[in-house]
């Protein structure tokens, strides 16, 4: 954490006491580095930011209210639009919650497919971060590399689900049977497209390559390090107080990963490491995400090896009525803990659906972490938190 009395190089030349009037600097809502429509009202004193007031809500779509008039199946189509960079990962905790309420369990093959697609969504989300973050710091090359590789992931997701960003692939009791399949008989075609595992495996090799390339391009880069090391340090206790989860929390030295902690999807069968860093600065938040790309590729490879055969869908009544009950269902989204508190009163629609979106909680720390930072660091710190405004505003 940079304290006000530490003098930065840009200020060192001014040795006499100069009074600068406090100014208000407005950033956004349309600003390239705000990942959508976030507005910041900053009070600046020279090069220092004295206080920041984020203004959100430009994209508030009222999903919690709409969900009260939609059936559970219709809500699946809504929730993957919350964080559109990793649409599939948002569906999973919702559908797991509804399954828990209804007492239905998806067959093992469907669980594995969910796990594979969640990890693909994680890689794709982290590739967006890896491409956009160096861009915000002034490096344009990684953008081209990472976004090119993301296309391979999006193509795989599209091949299975039919949608690049909004899969809407989960069903209560399993996943949507795929009728395309590249096969002619209907019985065979109710599964993943033929050759999918082969192509996924090849794509995972590409992901290892791009992670190494990005390592060469960005990780050791002096300029990137000057902009990120020891900048925007978030200590673990502050991260917990503000409800940070995911890579932002793990960069502060807390090895909290719901894939290890919570009992959902067959992550127990898979051998992988939780990426943790101790520093809590922008550089560590970047490094955690880079490490997670490699770990996700590892998970997908093992899942392809271990995936059992069997049906994709459990027996579910055609008209799904969820019994009365309340459940909190959460999962590790690429950005952190994503949860749904579902209150069912026994109808076809939930009585109340609370969406615990990750970026909203991750963004609450912004006024604290930006206080007394330099203006050029403002964008560096904001970008390192990796938020999506759709996920903030819901």
């Amino acid at each position, binding site marked *: 954490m940079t304290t006000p009395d530490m003098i930065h190089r840009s200020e060192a030349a001014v040795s006499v006491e100069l009074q600068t009037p406090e100014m208000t600097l407005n950033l956004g809502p349309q600003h390239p580095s705000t990942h959508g429509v976030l507005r910041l009202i900053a009070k600046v004193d020279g090069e220092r930011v004295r206080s920041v007031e984020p203004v959100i809500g430009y994209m508030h779509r009222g999903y919690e209210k709409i969900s009260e008039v939609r059936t559970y199946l219709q809500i699946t189509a809504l929730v993957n639009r919350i964080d559109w960079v990793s649409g599939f990962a948002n569906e999973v905790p919702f559908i797991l919650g509804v399954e828990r309420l209804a007492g239905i369990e998806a067959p093992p093959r469907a669980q594995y497919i969910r796990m594979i697609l969640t990890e693909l969504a994680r890689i794709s989300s982290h590739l967006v971060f890896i491409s956009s973050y160096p861009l915000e710091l002034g490096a344009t090359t990684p953008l081209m590399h990472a976004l090119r590789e993301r296309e391979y992931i999006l193509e795989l997701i599209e091949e299975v689900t039919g949608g690049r960003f909004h899969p809407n692939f989960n069903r209560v009791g399993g996943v949507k049977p795929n009728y395309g399949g590249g096969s002619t008989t209907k019985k065979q075609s109710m599964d993943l497209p033929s050759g999918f595992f082969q192509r996924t495996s090849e794509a995972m090799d590409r992901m290892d390559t791009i992670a190494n390339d990005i390592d060469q391009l960005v990780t050791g880069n002096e300029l990137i390090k000057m902009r990120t090391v020891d900048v925007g340090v978030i200590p673990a206790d502050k991260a917990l107080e503000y409800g940070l*989860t995911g890579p932002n929390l793990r960069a502060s030295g807390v090895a909290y990963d719901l894939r290890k902690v919570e009992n959902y999807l067959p992550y127990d069968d898979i051998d992988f490491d939780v990426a943790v860093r101790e520093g809590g600065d922008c550089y560590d938040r970047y490094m955690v995400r880079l490490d997670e790309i490699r770990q996700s590729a590892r998970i997908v490879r093992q899942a392809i090896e271990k995936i059992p055969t069997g049906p994709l869908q459990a027996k579910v009544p055609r008209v799904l009525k969820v019994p009365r009950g309340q*459940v909190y269902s959460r999962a590790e989204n690429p950005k952190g803990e994503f949860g749904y508190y579902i*209150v069912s*009163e026994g109808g076809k629609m939930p*009585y*109340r659906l609370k969406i*615990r979106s990750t970026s909203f*909680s991750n963004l609450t720390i912004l006024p604290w972490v930006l206080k007394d930072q330099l203006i050029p660091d403002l964008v560096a710190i904001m970008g390192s938190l990796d938020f999506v405004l759709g996920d903030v505003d819901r």
Partner: protein
Amino acid sequence: MSDQPESTETEASEPSELEAYASDLTERLGAEGYTVELDTVRIDVSRDKWVETINTAREELELFSWLSAIDWSKEVEVGDPVADVDDLDERFEVLCRLSSVKNADGAIFVVTLPKDDATIPSLTSTIAGAEWHEREAHEMFGIDFDGNMNLTPLYLPDDFIGNPLLKSYPLIAREVKPWPGDVDVEPMPVAEEEAGSDS
């Protein structure tokens, strides 16, 4: 669910590990009671001890996850009403979820507020991250958080009138134009398992 006999589903099986955890936590915190339903632990807290209980609980459940509210209302403009409307005790429930970062432990702390006096002490003096969550609950439900100095609208425009997540608040778009899903989609067949279903 507190307007129902306490956790009937879980009583069928033997007291689970989770229930032992919930009862132990309730006792240590001096809370009023607990329910365990579908792996979700809910601990009832009285309004006077809200801040104190949350602060004590955070010594072991370090992560402040979220805070929100539920409007239990007889007058329902949108969606399905509650199952037993006549027995319903109209109230707000404010929920706060805390999680451990070492294991899967976690609990949702619930405080019940009467509709005519929806005021609760704010958590912001010790949990700064609660500010936005409280602002959201304030604008969406009209709940006042005593001690939160910045209860300005978070999502809604400054001149917005009403609390949209109240059950009595209509969905204006739906009033003007009915949801086409109701008419376009052919009615779902009633499966054998769902005998007695009214749709």
